[in-house]
């Protein structure tokens, strides 16, 4: 699904834990223009629920996709967040 999304920026929060993935995602989304998509790469497994919950209750953002990947034996969680008007 993510391959269909045109990613504008990528935010690397690997190694960081709650609340930083959400807080930094917010800061990065604020820098985008409407319609642009931010890719967030995290290793915090809680980020799957946290970013989904944050996106659902926050105006001006939309979660387009989430996926879990294995990168060299390490679980990586990717989130695709769009800034919307």
């Amino acid at each position, binding site marked *: 699904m993510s391959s269909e999304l045109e990613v504008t920026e990528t935010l690397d929060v690997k190694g960081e834990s*709650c609340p930083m993935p959400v807080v930094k995602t917010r800061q990065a989304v604020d820098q985008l223009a409407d319609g642009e998509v931010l890719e967030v790469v995290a290793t915090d497994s809680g980020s799957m629920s946290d970013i989904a919950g944050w996106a659902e209750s*926050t105006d001006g953002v939309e979660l387009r996709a989430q996926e879990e990947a294995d990168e060299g034996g390490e679980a990586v969680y990717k989130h695709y967040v769009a800034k919307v008007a």
Partner: protein
Amino acid sequence: MSTDAPGAGADEAADAVDPVAVDADSFDAEDVAAMQAELDELRETVADLETEVGDGQKSMTIIATKGTLDMAYPPLILASTAAAFGWDVVVFHTFWGLDILHEERSRNLQLSAVGNPSMPVPNAVAALPFMDRVTTRMMEKRIADNGTASIEELIDVSLESGVDLQACQMTIDLMEYDEDDFYDGVTVGVGAATALQHMADADVQLMI
């Protein structure tokens, strides 16, 4: 009640005024003007309330009263996350909660194993003079290993994202702290009334 049954219920019928059936001719111009003024006032009040409710922005007030390493985290984690949600957030720091905002003391917050059954140390040992330092160092190492943000980082992101970190003026004076001891951006010169004012309008109020 039936109107075609004179006698029974007649008194009741006389008392009940149907607002739709009121004869407009029975009011003079003064009454109408007074009612119009009252109606205008009500419309204004409703419009104000709609504006207040309509912006949809949630608000949270946290009262932070503790200055140990473990108790410094919850207020700052919730505050920075709520700010990411776009909420209007105030954290009012009082008593030992002030140490969280104190630039020097916030870097030396301690964790005690005394009276904490979650710690793998018996109280008799935990009470030894050097033990707070040991448990604090252990916790700090875990925090670093886990990639958990430091207190200073959380204060920075909170202030950056618009959280109002307030330091209770009465406690600043009581603890003999100087206003310059606190992080730049911290609000000083505030008291209980300021905290209550924000709490009264807040959707979430927490005391930590």
